[in-house]
């Protein structure tokens, strides 16, 4: 069961990623990205991380991607879609392709040499449940948690500062 789910979700997720990259229209790209993220949530679920999976759907799909779509709509979609020009000149394709291919070859070679690694053992009781994550988040990683909140705060202020029309800012 787990195996089937893994292959299904994994394949669909990669498909979603590839479609995101290859679709000319930004809106369609975004939709495919949402698809990929939902599949990623499935992967998380398989990996005993239900809380993360839920959050993936809520935050990514529900918030971030909506934001993306919102912006795409706002910026007059048609203007964005006309990537009429070729994406790259032909001779440049190898240059783009070489690094990923090199990495894949490397990974392949690596696996061939060392074999795969099993998860082994079992996870503790309640692993990945909201309670466990919350305990870590508000205990061991409290400082990081607070810092992240500051990062978000700064991001909010920054986004406001950038987004607002320049002359309406308080100090201009």
């Amino acid at each position, binding site marked *: 069961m787990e195996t089937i789910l893994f292959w299904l979700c994994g394949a669909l997720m990669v498909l979603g990623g590839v479609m995101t990259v290859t679709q000319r229209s930004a809106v369609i790209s975004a939709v495919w990205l949402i698809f990929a993220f939902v599949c990623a949530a499935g992967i998380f679920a398989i990996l005993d991380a239900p809380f993360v999976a839920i959050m993936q759907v809520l935050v990514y799909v529900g918030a971030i991607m909506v934001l993306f779509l919102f912006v795409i709509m706002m910026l007059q979609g048609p203007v964005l879609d006309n990537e009429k020009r070729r994406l790259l000149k032909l001779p440049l394709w190898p*240059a783009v392709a*070489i*690094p990923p291919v*090199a*990495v894949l070859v*490397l990974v392949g070679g*690596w696996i061939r040499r060392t074999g795969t690694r099993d998860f082994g053992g079992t996870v503790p009781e309640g692993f990945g449940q909201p309670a466990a994550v919350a305990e870590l988040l508000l205990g061991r990683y409290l400082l990081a948690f607070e810092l992240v909140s500051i990062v978000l705060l700064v991001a909010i202020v920054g986004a406001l500062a950038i987004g607002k029309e320049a002359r309406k800012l308080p100090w201009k």
Partner: protein
Amino acid sequence: MESHANEILLRWIVLVPLLGAAANGLLNRRLPKQVSGLLACGAVGVSFALSIVVFLRLAGMPVAERFLSDTVTTWIGFGRLQVDLAFALDPLNAVMALVVTGVGFLIHVYSLGYMAHDAGFQRFFAYLNLFIFAMMTLVLGENLLMLFVGWEGVGLCSYLLISFWFNDEANAAAGKKAFIVNRIGDFGFLLGMFLIGVTVLPHLGAGEGLLSFRVLQHHAGALAPAATAICLLLFLGATGKSAQIPLFIWLPDAMAGPTPVSALIHAATMVTAGVYMVARMNFLFVLSPAAMNVVAIVGAATAIFAATIALTQNDIKKVLAYSTVSQLGYMMLACGVGAFAVGIFHVMTHAFFKALLFLGSGSVIHAMSNEQDMRVMGGLRKKLPVTWWTFLVGTLALAGIFPLAGFFSKDEILWKAFSSGNQVLWAIGFVAAGLTAFYMMRLLVLTFFGENRASPEVKHHIHESPLTMTLPLVVLAVLSLVGGWVGIPHFMGGGAHFEQWLEPVFAGGHHVVEAAHGAADAAHGAAADAVHHDTTMEWILAGASLAWGILGLLLGWLVYARRLGVAEGARRLAGGFPYRLLEHKYYVDEAYEATFIRPGYRLSKTVLWKWIDAGLIDGILVNGSALVVAVVGSVVRLFQNGMVRFYAWSITVGVTVFVLYLCFSG
């Protein structure tokens, strides 16, 4: 020495004119002219009065102890480099102080009338007071550095006063020239000071100021090995300030300033600073016969050189200016043959009659509506009686006619030159004396005799100057008449009081010589011997120079008042070349211009700035290294193409390479 009221007075002699200058300078036009003039004259008057007080106090002291000092504070104090802000008074600078403040006071009074209608009246008196301050610092300074302060200060005032009427670019240029030429001299002075300081420093005891004259005199023995170099460097300074060859060129141009300035600064006081300095440092100069020879030769050469130029000048002030240069040459000559006292004597008498002559010429110029060319003057004898009579006194004094002031001092100089054993120097001085008489008579005739050649309009305005101007003339005339009597030499039955007064200052130098060389044939000894053995020779020489002076005057009279054809003939002599040579002052200015100034300018502008700065350093090295970067980076340039995707790709490549490296290295 315990602090005494008279010693504290020394600083006030210097400071009172400074206060006057400050008041005039800061308030400037807010001050009514009367108040301003009164303030300025009062300041110098107080200074003069104080000088008399301290002079009398000095005179009341035993001969060997005649010394007052007033240390205000430490000026530069760093480790062993200790220089005090201090003033001192000994017989030498007591004389100088009296001359400077006395003549200065008269000229201040004169300026009241001369500058009455000038818009810059207050500014003028501020500068003039500032000058007295600087000059008194120079004279009363207790050490070489204080002297240098005054030295630079008078140079500055000279600059300010020469370019006083700065509306005319030429005046401004003349002022600048004076300052810069003086700076060249100061360059030597500075180096001389360094050499003294470095040489004497190891020998200083605790609490001894580095450049103090007394200390230096005390350690003169230690300075002996470097004496020649020191003296020549200091003398370079003196040639600048006292307008000797080769740095005399600024003085004639300095006549661009108002005439009282010419009288005060460029005749009576500042230009004698060089002589004063040489006399002040006599204890060093006597250690170096070579330097003394240079001083004497330069002095004699300057005397004759300037006298010949004076023969042909048409500007009344230029004649007097070259005459001043020539007379300064005499003073240097005196110092050079070891007769420092006589040199200072001539400084004093010259201050009287040259100030008189300049002020007289100022009176003439004033009357002639600012005309300075003698060719359009003439016949002023009747119209300017006071000026005429006082001018006559000045001329006779300068020509060295018995019993006026100039006779005694000039005759003494010639005698000392003769008795020093170098008859060539004497002969040069003797010839120059005749020339002096000749050109002064030429000046006198052209200005005061014959018909007035001015335009009717100017003629109409000719009038005698006001009392403020004539009174100083009269006083100075009297001084020119009797001023020499304080130094009537022994052979004429006089007491040579002047020399005796200065004896304590210069005796020290002779002692140093004796100590250093162990020789008894020092200048002092020789002179003293001569007094007893050779009076006949002195009489003969005195008579000869008197006769020679009269002859010069007579010739001048004959040529210019009676037979102008002779003058015309001289003008055309040998194709007119000698005359033109003299008229153009031997083309010295032009030579300097062609050899130093223009090439220096070109060098700076073309080579240094355009080629080296802009071309070599900026062009090749700086921008060139930028070019190298560009060549190397013609590849890199591709990376800097502003394409975000390209940057992203670069990152991926970099990361990939990094990962590969990690894998294969591990």
